[in-house]
């Protein structure tokens, strides 16, 4: 029963982490750029939830905040694209590292100035209670996190697999120059990648903010988790990012329960090193990408 409890907790946490990692990969695929402001985008989503909840009657379920959070963080993504990526996209990649790191610092300090340094909590998605199911205490919040993440990931999969825009996005991620030669507008795809990717990060922020709180300084550890997920799962692979994120949660929850948290963290990094040595392209490594 306890193992089932741990599995559920790991799945809930991993689902939220998966949204973070998927958002990271969406930007990566649209641009080849590593967006170091991505962790701060998760935090921005959490604080957007806190702010919007403050404008609504008390007791409102957190799921109601999702559309607003998605819109706000998608707009943030467009700003990041316009300020920190598009003007310098023809420069060496390290330039984008610097601009997105700087943007992330601006977001962190901005949130600190507006909301203060204290951790904040957002409303529970559907309620704070729990249900007993086959001897396992299942919190409504955990179930809601899993369901919301699954819904968003499913919607993304539909868009990417079944729509022309999704095909164009995937084509750009594999060969942007050839995509351009077919008439696909790369700037549009770039903006879409940033908007979608940051919206996913924001959604993760909402999902995490009730159970785990949100602080302005949380961004650094979140970008690290996204990076680890992508290294394990495969650079550029959405499926791999999800698997990598779930694996991180398995270490944080499962491995930590039988050893200790510091040991679990060390073992996670050893696993990352093993992946890099044995299969450097990651578990679901994508075919080689052609740079524009």
């Amino acid at each position, binding site marked *: 029963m*306890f193992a089932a*409890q*741990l599995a559920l*907790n*790991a799945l809930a*946490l991993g689902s939220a982490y998966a949204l973070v990692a998927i958002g990271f990969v969406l930007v990566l695929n649209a641009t080849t750029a590593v967006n170091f402001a991505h962790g701060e985008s998760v935090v921005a989503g959490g604080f957007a939830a806190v702010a919007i909840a403050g404008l609504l009657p008390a007791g409102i379920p957190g799921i109601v905040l999702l559309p607003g959070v998605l819109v706000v963080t998608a707009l943030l993504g467009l700003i990041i694209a316009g300020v920190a990526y598009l003007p310098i996209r023809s420069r060496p990649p390290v330039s984008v590292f610097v601009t997105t790191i700087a943007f992330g610092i601006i977001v*962190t*300090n901005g949130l*600190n100035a507006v909301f*203060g*340094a*204290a*951790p*904040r*909590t957002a409303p529970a998605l559907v309620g*704070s209670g*729990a249900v007993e199911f086959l001897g396992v*205490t299942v*919190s409504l919040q955990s179930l809601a996190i899993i369901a919301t993440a699954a819904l968003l990931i499913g919607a993304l999969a539909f868009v990417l697999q079944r729509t022309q825009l999704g095909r164009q996005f995937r084509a750009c991620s594999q060969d942007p120059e050839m995509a351009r030669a077919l008439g696909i507008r790369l700037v549009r795809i770039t903006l879409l990648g940033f908007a979608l990717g940051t919206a996913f990060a924001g959604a993760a922020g909402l999902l*995490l903010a009730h*159970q*785990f*709180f949100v*602080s*302005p*300084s*949380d961004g650094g*550890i979140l970008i690290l988790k996204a990076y680890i997920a992508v290294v394990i799962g495969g650079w550029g692979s959405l499926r791999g990012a999800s698997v990598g994120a779930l694996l991180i*949660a398995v270490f*944080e*929850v*499962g491995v*930590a*329960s039988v050893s*200790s*948290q*510091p040991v*679990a*963290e060390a073992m996670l990094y050893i696993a990352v090193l093993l992946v890099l040595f044995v299969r450097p392209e990651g578990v679901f490594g994508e075919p080689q990408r052609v740079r524009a």
Partner: protein
Amino acid sequence: MLPGLRRIGLATAIITAGLSLVTTAAADSLRIPVLVPITGFLSLEGTSQKNGAELALDGSDVAFDVADTATSPEVAVNAFERAMNAKDVVSVVAPMLGTQMLALIPLADEFDVPMITVSGTARITELGSPNVFRFFPGDVVVKAAHARYAVEELGAKKPAIISQTTAYGQSGRAELDRNLRALGQPPVFTEGLEVSVKDMLPVLSKVRDSGADVLLLHLHSGPTALVIRQARAMGLDIPIVAGSAMHQPETAALLESAELLGGCAESGWSPISETGPEFRAFADAYRKSFNREPDAFALGQYDGVNMVLAAIRGGARDAAGVRSWLESNRYDGLAMTYASDGKGNMAHSAVILCYIGADRVPQIVKRYRNVTGVL
């Protein structure tokens, strides 16, 4: 000379004279740089430090600048070195983050400037530096209170400890462990957690499996609230006595009233729990200036800066004078009476607070005065 040029010359002379007056005034005033973590995982506590220092310095003749030390020792060292470029620095408000303090101590000794801080990390006053003055009861004091309350008041026979893996956490855990053993009740379970850990089920399940009858926490604000929330959610109903983070109103604000009820914490003091007029005046002034509730870190820093101002009023005009005054005098601050134990530990009392009412304001349930016997 042409009329226009004459006007320009006159304006230049006035401006230059004015500047030299300003410069002279600045050269005459003493300075206390305020170097605190305003961003990063300790930003909540660091902001309290900043606010307490500012409240004490506002209206005084002493000049001050605030610099953010964030979370890394390098940033703190850079901020300190930049601060030393100014003239007439008589003291420095130093960050409460233990790892930063440990990096700053050699610099403070090199520049021979006393640092006043509210850092709880025990080690900062064990390195033999004459330039560290801690205005918050150190781990030696608060962890003694923490352990004694658990054993003597709650009857703990199998205590468990969860601490942070930071220098603050390790220092506190070592003191808690030592005190519990001295009281004859060694811990049955101990684990350290990274600041970023979100899911507490693994560690709480191990606490439950250990058969612990009291849980002692030595964690920062967010992790403290997470442990309490998740312990209650999983039905772990043993008493929880948290570290000083739990006394902060911002930490309490993260929890529902039902989750708060019965929870306790150690602290140097709790300004919002006191009802005396001087505390109310302090709390009112704090709320008015900063739009938030004061906590013990703010109060400790406020008292510490005020003691330095008292030293200046007492005739100290440079860093050596301030240091000498702090070493050899008592000071009746708002929170308590301060006096150095010879190593720079100025505060020697602690309290235990518990959330026992519906109003979410903790009550002081036990005072531990002069724990070290220095006063």
